[in-house]
């Protein structure tokens, strides 16, 4: 089959006879050649010495099992350490690693109790530490990746339950064929953007007549990933197409396709708890038969924690996110649609609420003193809820005090300085008045005073022992806060020195210069944290620098980069 149009864009039409010679698009050809040359020059001089992971094969490890994983990329020879964001034993099998450094063999021994979900790894070699790469912990049996299944007629046949890795690199879509039985539910899930992939997955299911019988993209609570359950009307062979929603082809378009009886869970409820404590949760979502609640122990040092959700005794878990902060947790109490029925809450606190039906409204009453300033920070999409929030604050007489600006990209929030004593009301609605089993939110309410946030556009730095590195820190100051900010670097080697550790009054940035001691050996590495502080005692304000700008570039499809990586910057030591 020939395609008309592909050559035309390059200005090289295959015109017949004399016309073709006259109109062969020579200028366009020259410009292409110049561009190619420029690209070669641009890349040729760069020496990439730190290890780089471009793919993992498979891109998943299994709880309670040993999984051999081949990391592919560059400078992967001589891996001495592997960091993972979850407890796991990793061994490097040098005998199976490539001499040219383009691959390394890693053996993961994953504890059985490890929750299904997505985690991060870095590898450390004598040339430094790699940037993070995301992999999945999956309880479904894995199939070996296939090639050439880029058309309906070339679909790869699979038995389910199963999970398989794929990449939409040289084709827009991959095709998989499954035997399905009439009346037996199956869930198809594509994990892509949650793994840092650039693929914006679109799943389409066809019957034997090539009629489309189901489709999914941007599934509730999964941001842009896709997932759906399907109960066949007839037994037979069904073909699943995995493609990119806007027809992009890229080596970074990797995905993991999962097929099993996976519940369509989106949220735990309550949505969070206190660090180091325990919280008893049930799970929200659709197709939740056989899913039971659990008691979860919250890690003392994490703001987010993934939790697997499966039907009792079944493989094929969904995974959800549990928040963790030091605020006392409260759960909404229905009916509370009207101010007169408002759920009474104390401040500070974290409210866990749901929009159980369309047009649901939740009202919360709380007491404040004149002059108090409170911040109300909502969380929905970052925790897996499809909801967006609309917030209004009313005074004791029922007059509207303030309304959150909901037109911006952030999750809704507002700050208010109260002018009177008394019981005020916070009214929360779903922005579009939607509701249903998957809709929930967490609202943190706590005293507020002007402060700052810090960020850096770096998540990984490699330097020589005895050398120095520079780290630019940017400050976002709240209105009314202009004091100097003192920066401290935690986690450095003994003997390291830091200069330039103050962001002056009214300034918005500083560049830290860190001198490393000479005694460190190549292959050593640390995760450091830059913490800014201003004031003392009651006026003290403290915040860690977030590498979120760097992570957003690394994982462009993720609206909320992995919290496992937030606040941390990896520093590796490379050889001379």
């Amino acid at each position, binding site marked *: *089959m*020939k*395609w*008309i*149009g*592909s*050559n*035309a*864009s390059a200005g090289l*039409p*295959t*015109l*017949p006879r004399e*016309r*073709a010679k006259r*109109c062969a698009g020579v200028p366009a050809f020259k410009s292409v050649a110049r561009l190619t040359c420029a690209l070669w020059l641009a890349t040729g001089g760069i020496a990439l010495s730190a290890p780089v992971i471009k793919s993992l094969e498979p891109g998943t490890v299994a709880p309670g099992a040993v999984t051999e994983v081949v990391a592919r990329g560059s400078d992967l020879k001589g891996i001495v350490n592997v960091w993972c964001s979850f407890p796991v034993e990793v061994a490097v099998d040098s005998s199976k690693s490539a001499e040219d450094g383009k691959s390394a063999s890693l053996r993961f021994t994953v504890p059985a109790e490890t929750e299904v979900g997505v985690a991060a790894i870095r590898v450390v070699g004598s040339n430094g530490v790699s940037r993070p790469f995301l992999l999945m912990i999956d309880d479904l049996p894995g199939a070996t990746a296939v090639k050439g299944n880029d058309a309906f007629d070339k679909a790869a046949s699979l038995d389910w339950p199963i999970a398989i890795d794929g990449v939409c690199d040289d084709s*827009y*879509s991959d095709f998989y064929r499954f035997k399905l039985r009439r009346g037996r539910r199956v869930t198809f899930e594509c994990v892509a953007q949650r793994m840092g992939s650039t693929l*914006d997955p679109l799943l389409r299911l066809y019957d034997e007549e090539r009629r489309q019988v189901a*489709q999914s*993209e*941007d599934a*509730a609570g999964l941001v*842009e990933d896709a997932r759906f359950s399907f109960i066949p009307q007839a037994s037979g062979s069904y073909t699943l197409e995995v493609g990119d*929603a*806007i*027809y*992009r082809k890229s080596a970074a378009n990797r995905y993991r396709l999962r097929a099993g009886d996976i519940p369509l869970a989106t949220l735990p409820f309550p949505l969070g708890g206190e660090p180091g404590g325990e919280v008893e949760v049930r799970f929200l979502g659709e197709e939740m038969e056989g899913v039971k609640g659990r008691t979860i122990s919250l890690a003392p040092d994490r703001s987010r924690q993934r939790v697997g959700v499966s039907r009792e005794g079944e493989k094929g878990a969904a995974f959800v996110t549990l928040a963790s902060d030091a605020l006392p947790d409260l759960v909404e109490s229905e009916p509370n649609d009207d101010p007169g029925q408002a759920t009474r809450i104390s401040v500070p606190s974290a409210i866990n609420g749901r929009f159980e039906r369309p047009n649901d409204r939740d009202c919360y009453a709380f007491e404040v003193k004149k002059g108090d300033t409170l911040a109300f920070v909502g969380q929905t999409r970052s925790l897996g809820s*499809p909801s*967006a929030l*609309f917030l*209004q604050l009313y005074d004791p007489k029922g007059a509207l005090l303030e309304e959150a600006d*909901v*037109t*911006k*990209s952030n999750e809704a929030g507002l700050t208010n300085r109260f002018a009177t004593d008394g019981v005020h009301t916070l009214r929360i609605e779903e*922005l*579009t*008045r*939607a509701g249903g089993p998957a809709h929930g939110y967490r609202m943190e309410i706590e005293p507020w005073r002007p402060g700052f946030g810090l960020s850096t556009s770096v998540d990984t730095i490699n330097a020589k022992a005895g050398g120095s590195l520079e780290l630019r820190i940017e400050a976002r100051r709240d209105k009314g806060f202009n004091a100097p900010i003192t920066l401290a670097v935690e986690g450095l080697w003994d003997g390291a020195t830091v200069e330039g550790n103050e962001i002056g009054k009214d300034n918005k940035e500083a560049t830290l210069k860190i001198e490393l001691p000479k005694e460190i050996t190549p292959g050593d590495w640390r995760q450091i944290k830059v913490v800014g502080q201003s004031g003392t005692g009651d006026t003290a304000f403290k915040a860690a620098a977030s590498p979120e700008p760097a992570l957003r570039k690394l994982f462009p499809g993720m*609206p909320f980069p992995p919290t496992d990586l937030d606040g941390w910057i990896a520093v590796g030591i490379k050889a001379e």
Partner: protein
Amino acid sequence: MNSPDQPSADAGRPLRSILRILVALFVAANPAGAETIHFKRDIMAVMAKAGCNTGSCHGNATGKGGFKISLFGDDPENDFNILTRDQFGRRADVIEPDRSLLLLKPTNQVAHEGGKRFDRDSWEYRTLRAWIAGGMKPDAEGSPAGLLKIDVSPLRQTLVEPERRTQLEVVATFADGETRDVTSMAVYQPTSQLASVSHDGLVEAKGTGEVTIMTTYLDKQVPVRLIVVPDRPGFEWRPVRKVNYVDRRIFSKLHTLRINASDLCSDEVFVRRAHLDLLGVVPTPDEARAFVADKAADKRAKLVDELLERPEFADYWAMKWSDVLRNEEHALDKKGVRVFHDWIRRGIREHKPLDEFARQLIAARGSTYRNAPANYYRAMRDPIMRAETTAQVFLGARLQCAKCHNHPFDRWTQDDYYGWASLFARVDYKVVQNNRLLVGTDKHEWNGEQIVFLKRKGSVTDPRTGRPAKPRFLKSGETGIVGDDEDPLIALSEWVASPDNPFFARAQVNRIWYHLMGRGLVDPVDDFRSTNLPTHPELLEALRADLVEHDFDLRRIIRVIMNSRAYQLSSEVNETNRDDEINYSHNVVRRIHAEPVLDSLSRVAALSLQFKDYPAGLRAAQLPGVMPKSKSNRGRTELNLFLDVFGKTARLVPSECDRSNEGTMSQAIQMISGPTINEMIADKDNRLKSLLDSAMTDAEIVGELYWSSIARAPTEEEEASHLSHVGNSASRREGFEDVLWSLMNSKEFLFRF
């Protein structure tokens, strides 16, 4: 009255002006002794009849000659003040009424750029003079009684030549029960130069055809339809078999007009026409041959049924809807466009009723990625745009004029306009992401997810009052006001798509008719108004009722139309229908639109298309969006440029009118020597290869090329000519390339017959 007022020789002018005002005020304060001339009823009628308040005269936004009154008398209170108080009342002389500029100018006694508007012995002069002489009194509270209606007779009139005249009569009925003959006071405005109307309502036709005469008295309008039939000596009506109600209406009117319809088209023409109209692509040679060979009496109906269930039907008709719903990447981004297009196409494929389709769009909200209909509002960032588009797309009403003044040619008032716009005032957007591709260059570009939602409060301000306009449905009065606690879009969606809505179903069947017949029963298809009446009002009503009765089923209406004899008429004209363009007496030949041309070319060449950044094999009619133009034309390929040249719309206006099927020199150049055509013809794996590699004779190959491109066999003469050319060519392949080129460039290929 549009030249500057003349300077008076009277040295005591200021004093006279003051005196005039005092007298006017005195008389106004003592109405008992005055003659009963009502400003709103009588003086406003004079101003309208004399044409003073039209847009080209003093009704203009800036007035004329320093004198400005409301357009078409929209604002009588304001006009009263202008006439009596403006410029110290110097336009009227209460003491010597005949010296009033209000009388001197329109009678041309002093220079008047607008010329003479009435005589000194006219009722206009007498009325105006009496009112001035009576002290220019304002109307008393509750007086005069309001105008309820006007009755015009005849409402429809058919004149057969040599008869060319008819007299109109206009009777006004007031709220107090009084009726008046206002024939001389009414304003008559023909929509074309086919007829003229005298001051007193005598209509005189200037030729044959159809014209609407808008008859206006005060704020009431009634359109009068006049048909003038040519005298055809010896005309003999040829009876035809009428298949359904479409034929009964069409042929009944043709009979009246003394027009004989063309014959039925051939099977070859029908199979090609049906494929192009329903699928947007020519039939394959096998499909065309099989249809022509089929001897079944009902094969045309069967073909229509079969094509309606083909996936290409959903693709092609989704493209039509995408055109009017502004489905383009600049505002919706590539993903939004695809999601929206998918939703439209799926709705058509799954037989979603048109009322449900409209409801879901109008009430839409939520993520533009997760809830596709929300994209309807994403492209329209202000209430005015949403209001005008919704009226145009779903009700066939262009409200734009009513934004600044009551619609001069329709029923819409400014109250209607701002009340309607207020329904959309609460729509707002949460911009979850905006990764603009053209950073800083275009604020109208949106790239990333948005959530469409309704603000809890909001309305449009009526600029005349400075107050919020109450949201309400069009022409619904107080009953159509949407309360503060109601969801305006849900209420609106129910009202628009209700079977009782007088506008919705009518607009939809007109749109379907337009796509199949090439011209709307009301044309332009989205411009229903009093001065743009349907050519076949009973047929429009019958189609409307049919759509409502059959659950707003798109396919039902398509079947009714395509199974009619009217649809299946030939393009060959006869002596009586040669000049007919609006009565469907023959098929109107029209150039195929951009996407069907390209898809048909690729089918003829047996080569699939490859659009940049889309899967190979996607047809032009399947393209979700339009590839927006940018400064650098980034990402546009020869195929996109081909579609542009052939009139693919940019989808920036919600109307079919934006899509052009006019012929241009650029199109000729594309077809004669453009890279797309040349690549298709020269490609070594195209249809020619398989034909030349087969055991077919040259004559058989010529036949195959004819069937594949124009769905018929060549005539003997055509075949001989082609065979001769091939025989004289340097190679067989080269000769057939030329045959293929000539077929692709033939009118029979590029036009729908």
